[in-house]
């Protein structure tokens, strides 16, 4: 099948150009931007029919459980697994010192369950680490019982929990197998970020302030526990895996057992019981899968590994740590310099520098940020919720401090410093023009809408100045940031027109994460091809290859949206070419085209019908068009009987999109879309309780494709934000290093009763780099809103609380009540 050369060229350029506005959006939208398509996964999930990896049952399947370290830092000196192996129902005991367990290279660079040096380690670097042995048995309960029979002589080692204390050169080593010169992991690129000269900036400032704030760990725990199933079909593995990026494990698995061809690996990614970017994000998820693969080989039976609830608590988000900040600013509100250092806990991903957002969306001319990734004896921190948490939190804390110091409305301060990469809005607007965007002031539009909805001018007051009739102190907070969804990633999509009825199936393998991305892709495909929305379907659980980017905000629509659009446009060309040209030649001769004597340019598709543009009455449904070739399947009765109708080739197209986005240090893209958030609280000064009475979210999403999905993120992100600000923290016993609240009662996640009404406002400036000018919204609210509670509480009580979560004891202490 050939396509027109000029179209190929246009497509190729569009595929490669990530640096400017969408040059060929649709002229009108029928399904894009409409509110209300029913979720594709809604009925299955709401009815309980949806299948998750935890539900997978394979005939003959065994269950694998892992030994958990009772100590935060300890080495196995001697381990006797004899009693466990002899327990009835136990089929195998895999030991850390079994030769085939292997080293970290087997499962990837970031190996081991929690960064150990082996997939199944003999040394634990955190309490609860899965070490030593894996027991496989006829049931989960038997495996559990057998674990208790394993006898171990441990060498307990000193441990550290506090990152600042652990950074002391004299501190005991927390991970001597990996970090032999201290507990600081120097990772390079993301450690340092700077522009300008902060010394100059501080010297030029009217005032310089310094402060510190901290955030304890909050984790990813999801309803579905981590799990996976390994089954050998001969020498071909079939795998079910709870995982957010299933293409990564497949790639790793292809290197196992001396190499397994990719086309022999079948990997299923069913519905996901939530991971929030945590456990199933990265390679270290593969340790248990590797163990399951080994034991499946040993026993000849499928093996399912399962973690218990507590084992899903180990690890947290990347903003855990202690932040030291110095800010210089002038009386007019212009911030001249910021220097920030983050002592960040156990980052195994590149940490996003605390000043990154200030670089991305402010005029601040002098910036210096440093991340010190300190290893302590706790779990990893990964991009749980979002990797933007440290810079967003830093931005909120800085802007609110400076506004308070100046007695300035924080919105005015935000507008004063809005920019990009140290440049002012004049520079930013020129960039918009150069890149083909219309020039709009996103932050101004966001704050104006937000102020009106929130009634900001009547609500904002001096800190600690408003007592309500119910005796509580009233406070409001504001913060802002840029929108993101343009980091890096790649996505592939294919679309196939089904025979018989002409419906379209989107084909791509990817993880579900609940944001209704499925409908969003369908909306694009429907509008681009000219189909009714009900004629487009996407089943992401179907294993078809074509790996798409996870639908998280880091990169979903700005990658996957493009990939769907490219595929849809190619497919539309293909349909129209097929409709205008003979496409098959048999012994009886060639078939007449469905639209003889026309060319593809003469035709269009609307409402799943092909029609002649000059004579719309000449039309044929896509179903009729493909039915002639499809009703009999591969056996054509029509051809057999000599009935000359029409024929179409298989209507299928695929495409992809790749981007490096704003993280590209060589050719970064300025961020143009902004978000603004407003929170109102009441503080009970006798109990320290915070009541979140209102939240207003304004997000410039560029272009809303699936409006309900966008608003869903604004609601969900608000609850998540309040939850992290008020409640969520993983608590470790300071004496033993043992995690104390690894369950869903003691680790508190907010419910809908824990916050008041949430307003959702979408602004659409079209200044995103995604198709139609979109930019993401998914992670943004849940990332920005947690920090917003600090300004709101400060406005209420007039005292700073710089330690998250903001709990009643901290409020009462700040008020001098205890």
């Amino acid at each position, binding site marked *: 099948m050939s396509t027109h050369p000029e179209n190929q060229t246009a497509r190729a350029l569009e595929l490669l150009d990530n640096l400017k506005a969408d040059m060929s959006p649709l002229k009108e939208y029928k399904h894009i931007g409409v509110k209300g398509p029913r979720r594709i996964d809604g009925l299955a999930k709401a009815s309980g029919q949806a299948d998750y990896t935890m539900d997978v049952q394979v005939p003959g399947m065994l269950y694998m459980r892992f030994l958990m370290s009772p100590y935060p830092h300890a080495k196995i000196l001697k381990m006797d697994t004899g009693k466990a192996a002899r327990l009835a129902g136990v089929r195998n005991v895999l030991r850390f010192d079994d030769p085939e367990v292997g080293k970290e290279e087997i499962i990837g660079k970031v190996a081991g369950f929690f960064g150990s040096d082996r997939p199944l380690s003999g040394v634990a670097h955190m309490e609860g680490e899965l070490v030593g042995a894996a027991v496989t048995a006829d049931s989960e309960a038997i495996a559990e019982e057998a674990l208790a029979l394993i006898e171990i002589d441990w060498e307990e080692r000193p441990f550290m929990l506090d990152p600042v204390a652990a950074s002391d050169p004299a501190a005991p080593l927390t991970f001597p197998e990996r970090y032999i010169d201290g507990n600081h992991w120097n990772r390079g690129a993301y450690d340092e970020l700077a522009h300008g000269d902060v010394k100059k900036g501080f010297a030029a400032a009217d005032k310089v302030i310094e402060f510190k704030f901290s955030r304890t760990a909050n984790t990813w725990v999801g309803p579905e526990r981590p799990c996976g199933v390994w089954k050998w079909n001969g020498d071909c593995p079939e795998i079910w895996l709870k995982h957010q990026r299933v293409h990564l494990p497949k790639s790793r698995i292809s290197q196992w057992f001396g190499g397994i061809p990719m086309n022999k690996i079948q990997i299923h990614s069913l519905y996901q019981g939530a991971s929030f970017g945590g456990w199933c994000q990265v390679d270290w998820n593969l340790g248990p899968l590797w163990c399951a693969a080994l034991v499946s080989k040993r026993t000849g039976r499928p093996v399912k590994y399962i973690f218990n609830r507590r084992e899903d608590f180990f690890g947290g988000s990347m903003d855990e740590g202690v932040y030291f900040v110095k800010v210089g600013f002038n009386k007019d509100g212009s911030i001249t310099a910021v220097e920030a250092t983050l002592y960040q806990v156990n980052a195994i991903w590149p940490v996003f520098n605390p000043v990154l957002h200030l670089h991305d969306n402010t005029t601040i001319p002098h910036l210096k940020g440093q991340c010190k990734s300190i290893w302590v004896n706790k779990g990893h921190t990964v991009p749980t919720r979002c990797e933007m948490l440290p810079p967003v939190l830093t931005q909120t804390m800085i802007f609110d401090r400076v506004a308070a110091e100046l007695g300035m409305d924080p919105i005015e301060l935000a507008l004063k410093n809005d920019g990009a990469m140290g440049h002012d809005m004049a520079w930013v607007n020129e960039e918009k023009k150069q890149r083909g965007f219309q020039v709009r002031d996103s932050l101004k539009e966001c704050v104006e809408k937000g102020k009106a909805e929130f009634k900001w001018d009547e609500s904002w007051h001096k800190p600690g100045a408003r007592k309500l009739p119910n005796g509580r102190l009233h406070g409001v907070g504001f913060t802002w940031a840029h929108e993101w969804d343009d980091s890096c990633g790649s996505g592939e999509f294919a679309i196939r027109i089904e025979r018989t009825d002409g419906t379209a199936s989107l084909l791509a393998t990817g993880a579900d994460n609940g944001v209704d991305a499925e409908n969003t892709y369908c909306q694009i495909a429907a509008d681009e091809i000219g189909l009714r929305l009900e004629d487009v379907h996407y089943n992401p659980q179907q294993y078809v290859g074509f790996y798409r980017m996870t639908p998280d905000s880091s990169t979903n629509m700005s990658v996957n949206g493009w990939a769907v659009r490219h595929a849809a446009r190619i497919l539309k060309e293909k349909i129209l070419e097929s409709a205008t040209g003979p496409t098959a030649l048999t012994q009886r001769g060639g078939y007449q085209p469905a639209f003889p004597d026309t060319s593809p340019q003469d035709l269009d598709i609307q409402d799943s019908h092909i029609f002649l543009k000059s004579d719309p009455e000449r039309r044929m449904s896509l179903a009729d068009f493909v039915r002639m070739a499809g009703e009999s399947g591969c056996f054509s009765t029509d051809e057999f009987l000599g009935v000359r109708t029409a024929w179409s080739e298989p209507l299928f197209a695929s495409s992809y999109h790749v981007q490096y986005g704003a993280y590209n240090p060589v050719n970064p893209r300025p961020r143009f879309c902004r978000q603004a958030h407003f929170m109102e609280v009441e503080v009970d000064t006798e109990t320290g309780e915070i009541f979140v009475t209102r939240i207003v979210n304004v997000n410039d999403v560029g272009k809303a494709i699936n409006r309900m999905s966008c608003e869903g993120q604004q609601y969900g992100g608000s609850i998540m934000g309040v939850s992290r600000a008020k409640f969520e923290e993983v608590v470790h016993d300071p*004496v033993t290093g043992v995690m*104390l609240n690894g369950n869903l*009662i003691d680790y508190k996640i907010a419910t809908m009763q824990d916050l008041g009404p949430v307003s959702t406002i979408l602004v659409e400036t079209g200044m995103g780099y995604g198709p139609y000018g979109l930019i993401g919204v998914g992670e943004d609210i849940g990332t920005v809103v947690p920090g917003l509670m600090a300004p709101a509480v400060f406005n209420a009580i007039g005292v700073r609380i710089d330690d998250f979560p903001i709990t009643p004891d901290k409020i009462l202490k700040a008020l001098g009540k205890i």
Partner: protein
Amino acid sequence: MKEFKHFNAYSIEEAVSLLGRYGERACIIAGGTDLLGKMKDAILPAYPEALVNIKTIPGLSYIKEDGGMLKIGALTVLSEIAHSEVVRSHWPALAQAACRTASPHIRDMGTIAGNLCQDIRCWYYRNQNNRFSCLRKKGGRCYAIKGDNRYHSIFGGSVSGGCLAVHPSDTAPALIALDAKIKTSGRTLDARDFFEVKPVKTTVLKADEIVTEIQVPEPAAGTTSAFLKFALRKSIDFPIVNCAAMITLKGDRVAAARICLNAVSVVPYRAAAAEQVVMGKSLDEAVAEEAGKAAVSEAKPLEHNKYMVAIARTLVKRSILACVGR
């Protein structure tokens, strides 16, 4: 979970007999909302060999007024108590306590007797796989004393003065404030005498003894009651502090007062000092404030739970005022 025997008891006698046979190796199961979590997490050194299911005993779920008192069957679920018009109108503290317990789903499963008999809340005691062999497990020490004790007793401990784990029941303080009695398979006890601190034990119940009924006396004329709870979350949460108060007024003076805090001590804490403060007085903000202070005058907070003292003081004050509609 490990395997265990499961017996459906069809009479109290049968349940008592089964419990007598297994002794401490058996547990009673009704709603199961506390027990199953404990078993899944294997928090205790020993795993129950048998569960005796008493949900199969007929006639233990009821709310009725009889002989000048409210009678509630042991198997009555919390949601029924929370929604009962009789309870809400005459014993509001109990209805409010039942309403604030746990979550709607758990209130539909959890029974009133189970809420009284539930195990202590302590994140050392309840840590998975019996990680901390503490005093309540016949172990060597209380790990909360030097550890993170933000949710522990502000009124000292027991079991040789060591254990600081709190009793978390929401309905217990309400029943104590309402001067309720607890009828078991063998006796009838004042609610205030029901709780006891011993290893792997929170009540005075013998191994083969079952709660069968809760009896709450008819309030005297001029009596009102109220229950308040402070928890981090608005739903699905145990109390940091809760408080129930019953006040009887003659004219504008307090003729009788019963105030009980919970989640602040190893057993429900009767705030006798606060009761003394309000007796004979006309209730206003100042008196209630004074009562709140008196209630926590004996508090001995730990390193991390001083805030609980402030909250307890406030809840005593507010529950008193709530009784008089303020």
